[in-house]
């Protein structure tokens, strides 16, 4: 019991916490999350739209397109993130020049998150009233117009909640990436908090991550509500 109390006291003493290191790690985590969210949004949106459109029409081209896209999406979603980082290291090295640091983590973060978001996009698009799409077709809209002026605006609340969930997942992924050298709060918690046995550092890293997650959730909820005119 005493051992526990000592550990507890030590945890809340914050003696080992170097606040400038926390600040830097926070910056790295936010950097990775923001860039990865933005790119996962873009790639996931495109993949999601391809999935939706190729599943909707039943011509000779769309079936293999749906099959291939769906396979790729499922494949990358099935690979555990920690393995994905290691697996694509040669690719990361080739395009980023390094596998270390925040930039070294980005390809894996994006490849891990985009297929997940793509499925959320597909689900969001399926929720759109078929009649509204038919109405746009009956006005002579082409596919491009339907994507821009019907599919995206009419599924926007779902897209926003989808990217919110994805972004929060990405915060978690940056922490995992941190363990193998990507920097950020996960790195801080592991390298300093765990290996040097400084639990107060781990606690601070945790609290900061929680704050980031809450902020993302609040922004997401507010935006999603604001655009929803249903």
């Amino acid at each position, binding site marked *: 019991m005493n051992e526990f109390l000592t550990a507890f006291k030590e945890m809340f003493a914050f003696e080992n916490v170097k606040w400038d290191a926390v600040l830097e790690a926070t910056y790295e985590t936010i950097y990775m999350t923001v860039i990865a969210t933005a790119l996962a949004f873009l790639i996931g949106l495109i993949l999601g739209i391809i999935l939706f459109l190729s599943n909707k029409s039943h011509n000779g081209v769309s079936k293999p397109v749906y099959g291939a896209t769906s396979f790729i999406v499922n494949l990358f979603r099935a690979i555990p993130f920690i393995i994905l980082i290691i697996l694509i290291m040669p690719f990361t090295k080739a395009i980023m020049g390094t596998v270390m640091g925040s930039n070294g983590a980005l390809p894996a973060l994006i490849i891990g998150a985009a297929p997940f978001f793509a499925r959320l996009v597909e689900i969001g698009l399926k929720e759109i009233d078929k*009649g509204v799409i038919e*109405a746009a077709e009956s*006005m002579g*809209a082409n596919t491009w117009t339907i994507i821009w002026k019907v599919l995206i*605006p009419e599924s926007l609340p779902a897209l926003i909640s989808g990217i919110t969930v994805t972004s929060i997942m990405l915060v978690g992924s940056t922490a995992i990436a941190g363990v193998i050298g990507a920097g950020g709060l996960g790195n801080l918690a592991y390298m300093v908090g765990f290996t040097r046995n400084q639990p107060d550092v781990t606690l601070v890293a945790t609290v900061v991550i929680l704050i980031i997650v809450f902020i993302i959730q609040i922004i997401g909820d507010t935006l999603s509500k604001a655009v929803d005119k249903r």
Partner: protein
Amino acid sequence: MIDISNVTKIFKTKNQNITAVDNVGLNVKKGEIFGVIGYSGAGKSTLIRLLNGLEQPTEGTVTVTGDEISGMTMKELRQKRQKVSMIFQHFNLLWSRTVAENISFPLEIAGVPKKERQLRVSELIRLVGLEGRENNYPSELSGGQKQRVGIARALSNEPQVLLCDEATSALDPETTDEVLDLLVDITKKMNLTIVLITHEMHVIRKICDRAAVMENGKVVEVGPVIELFQNPQSNVTKRFVKDDISDDDHAVAMEEIKEAFPTSTIVKLTFVGTRTKSPIVSQVIRNYGLDVNILSGNIKQTNQESYGHLYIALDINQETLEQITAEFKKHDVTLEVESK
């Protein structure tokens, strides 16, 4: 104007082929309001979608204002659809757009410049009577108002043909009549041709010039609306007409009426496409100095003519009865004696 000839549409599913439209031939004239009535599953939804190429026929040809819809490329078809617009049962407005933005949508598709779009939108809002609602979202409107937006949106590119897909089926009777009045009004103003599908006979009666009755993918009867009402040939048509007039009440009540008026002659006047606007019944009554008890009646107006029944009880001798029978006949009203 619109020519559907020998059109068949078969939907192929894994297990079976479903013939939604079965060798249908129809002709719609310019400026006409043409109705297609049938119960659900009769194939009318598919039929109307053949007219703007949302469905392509398996066999046969569909020609609209001189262009063969069934033989067009996608690009030509999209162009064509700007002139053959459509309104829907569930309105199908974009919830993410305001009333004005919804109406503007087809204009954006057609590439109309912004200034012109705004002008056109405010014109259309006036036309359908939605002034002051421009910046509301569809969720803030009633069903009738939503359909008005749908109509304004469909009219924005000044179409030649308006397709109405059960456009009033989701509305209450009063709102239905308002929307139908609006449709008649714009048909005249904009020189439109309307094809509408419905399962409600009173929609056909109220605004259509001619109508086709569909069952199991086939057109079983087609003709001027009044003829369908006067002289329905097929069982489906008879059912629709009967539902609309709902004559059943009279039969039940007749026994009681006879008891209540034991000394009177009870006659049934039948109006079949009576075009005259003059008050025939009251003229005849006055001319012969008769006293009349009106027992029950069910007279409906189509867009041109009236039809229905009127039951009256009167004290009358045989001679006068024959005279007034002849008198009524001159005005296309038949007189039958129900009891003496």
